[in-house]
Structures are given as C-alpha cells and as structure tokens.
C-alpha cells in the first residue's frame, strides 16, 4: 500500500516548490502522480476561468478598500489600469511610513508618491512631474473627522478624489491610500492637490468652484472660504 501524500505536498509538487524528499515521495506513488496530473490539468482550467490579470485587479481593489489586519497599508499602483498592465505589482511601503499608532492624532497631512520602476518615491511639495507619471495620493486625517481631496491642473480641470463616503468622513486608520493611482496627463505648468479637513463636512462643490475659477488660489484663502485646515501639494509640470 502506497504512502499517504498530503494535499499540501501534492500542491507543492505541482507548483514546483516541493523539496527533493517530497518530490521523491510523490513520484514513488502512482496514485499521487495521478492526482498531481489531475491538479495540473485543473490549474489550466482555473487560470483560464479566472485570468490572472482580472484576479489581480480585484485583489488590488480589495486591498485598497479593506483594513489591514496588521494595521499597515500597501501602496497600490495602477488600480484602474491593471486591465492593460503587463503585471500588477504591489509595493509595500516601509512599515514606519504607515504605522497606524504613529499616524493617529495631530494634523491632517497630504502625501504624494510616485512610481519609479518597481519602487516608489515620496515626493516633496513643488517636485517636478511629467505627463505619464503615475502618482498615488495618501492622507492622514489627524484629528479631523471630515475632509475632501481635490486636484486642479494648469487647464483649470478639477478632479474630486474624495470624499470616498457619502457622509464625507475621513478614515482614521493612519495613512490612507486612495483606492486608485493616477497617471498625469499633459496639462501644463502644474497639478495641485488640495486637502481640506475639519470637524464639519467640507463643501466640496464650493471647493471645486473656487479651484476651477482660480486654480492657484492660495491655501490661506481656501482656509478662510471653507473653514477648515488646508494642505496644498503642488507638482510642477515640465515637458
């Protein structure tokens, strides 16, 4: 009677990660080898029924919207672009940058990351950016319950990034990555990201109007108009 081979060992054999001893045990058992062939066949069927690009896209969306069990958040690139991407790579931020306990409390903060090859870089306010750059927006709510993030480009086009919820509340889970990254277009001169936060819901329509009318309206005037703390992050566009 042949040795019982566990499903896990068999799976490892099929995936090509079994140890030499495990592989020898499988190959010594005709019954196990037959099971392995069946698994390999099903692998092909499952991957055809659930294509890797589609699964990866759904996983990325899920990771962006669900709280992490460890209290950390991955930096996700290209969530809306995965259908055309060759591969979906998830870049984990260094732990210290997303530690929830450190991030709680204090002031609201807006951070922009840019994808650089297979890594990311944290940008400084005023950094140079170009059309085609992929950027990821992140915020820390601090002591603020409500907030909104809007961007405006050199053509006065305004994009509302948050609020993400109907009630306009911010997540309090430390640094929060917006669920999608953005590829900058060829709008000239600048891309300004404005984060308004406070103890009351932000008037997003008003914020949008103000920025559309005066894209470079300074933060102090925005603060006075909207009665909230204002973080402005400007990327200088160069060809």
């Amino acid at each position: 009677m042949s040795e019982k081979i566990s499903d896990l060992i068999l799976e490892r054999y099929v995936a090509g990660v079994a140890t030499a001893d495990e592989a020898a045990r499988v190959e010594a058992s005709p019954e196990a080898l037959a099971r392995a062939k069946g698994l390999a066949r099903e692998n092909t069927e499952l991957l055809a029924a659930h294509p890797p690009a589609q699964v990866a896209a759904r996983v990325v969306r899920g990771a962006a919207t669900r709280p992490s069990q460890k209290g950390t958040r991955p930096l996700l690139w290209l969530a809306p672009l995965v259908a055309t991407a060759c591969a979906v790579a998830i870049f984990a931020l260094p732990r210290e940058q997303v530690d929830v306990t450190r991030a709680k409390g204090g002031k609201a903060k807006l951070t922009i990351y840019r994808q650089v090859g297979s890594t990311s870089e944290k940008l400084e306010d005023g950094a140079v950016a170009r059309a085609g750059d992929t950027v990821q927006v992140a915020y820390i709510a601090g002591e603020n319950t409500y907030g909104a993030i809007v961007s405006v480009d050199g053509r006065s086009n305004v994009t509302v990034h948050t609020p993400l919820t109907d009630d306009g509340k911010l997540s309090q889970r430390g640094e929060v990555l917006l669920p999608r990254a953005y590829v900058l277009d060829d709008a000239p001169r600048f891309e300004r990201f404005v984060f308004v936060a406070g103890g009351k819901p932000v008037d997003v329509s008003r914020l949008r109007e103000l920025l559309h009318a005066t894209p470079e309206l300074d933060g102090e005037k925005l603060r006075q108009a909207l009665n909230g703390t204002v973080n402005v992050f400007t990327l200088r566009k160069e060809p």
Partner: protein
Amino acid sequence: MAIDIEDAYRRFGPMVVRRCRALLGDQEQAVDAMHDVFVRLIQSGDRLDDRGMSSLLYRVATNVSLNKLRTRRRKPENAGDDMLAALAHATDVEESTGTRRLLQRLLGGTSESTTTMAVMHWVDGMSLEEVATETGMSVSGVRKRLRILREQLGGQPQEASP
C-alpha cells in the same frame, strides 16, 4: 521589493481555490475566498520565498475558509463538515467569551493558528510531524495545542488510530 500578485496567483492561485473549496464545499465561494486570501497576502507585507509563500497561502486559505464557515453557519452536509463546523465554532466561542485571553495564553498563540493546525491534522489527515513542520512548531507543541482544543470541544475529535 515587490509582491507580484499576478505571478503569485498564477503559481498558487489554483491551490488556494482548491483548499477553500475543500473546506467550503462550494466552487463559487471558494473563488471568492481565494480573492480574500490574496488580499491578506498583500496586507501581510511578508517577504517570502516560493515555498514560504505556498505555506502561508495554504494556512491563510484555511483561516479564511473557517471564518466564512463560521459566518455561514450552514448545516453540515456530510461527516467531514461536522468537524469543520465544530472547529469554526470553537474559534467563535473563543472570540465571544472572556475565556479567549486565557485560552490563548494556554495555547501560547492565536486561536486561529490552532484551528488551522486542527484542520490540518483532524480534517486533512496530516501527521503531527507534518503539521509541526508546516507551522514551525515542535511536535509536542502541536500535540499540546490540539489536546487543549479537543478538551474545549468536549472530547471530540478522537485521535486517529496509527
């Protein structure tokens, strides 16, 4: 360093689906659970070699499936389901009573890892040695945890005859 989720799914996704399907008894729910498993992989941020990733995914698939079973509370459809339901319920009891902390102290770790060991041993039929290897514990440690869990379950299940 990046976790290429598409590559990880291509290599281990079918294994995860099968693992979830074996515990949940439903293909559609297994595929849904598989997505949850890979979300957890991303969120873990762990740096793993291929073998480590297969172990982690297998364990997480077990945990995710048990959680879904606990939520579903479906009526067992066969004898194997009785065991799974009991193990899922065991975790539920631990989380819903003040004994959880005590139990975790007794077990020396998380209840989730213990139920995973229990499924590997009592449901999958893996030996104590194999479970110990997979979980990075000693055989005696695995045996102790399972003994305590068995007592929590009122004496069930019995050890399989050698």
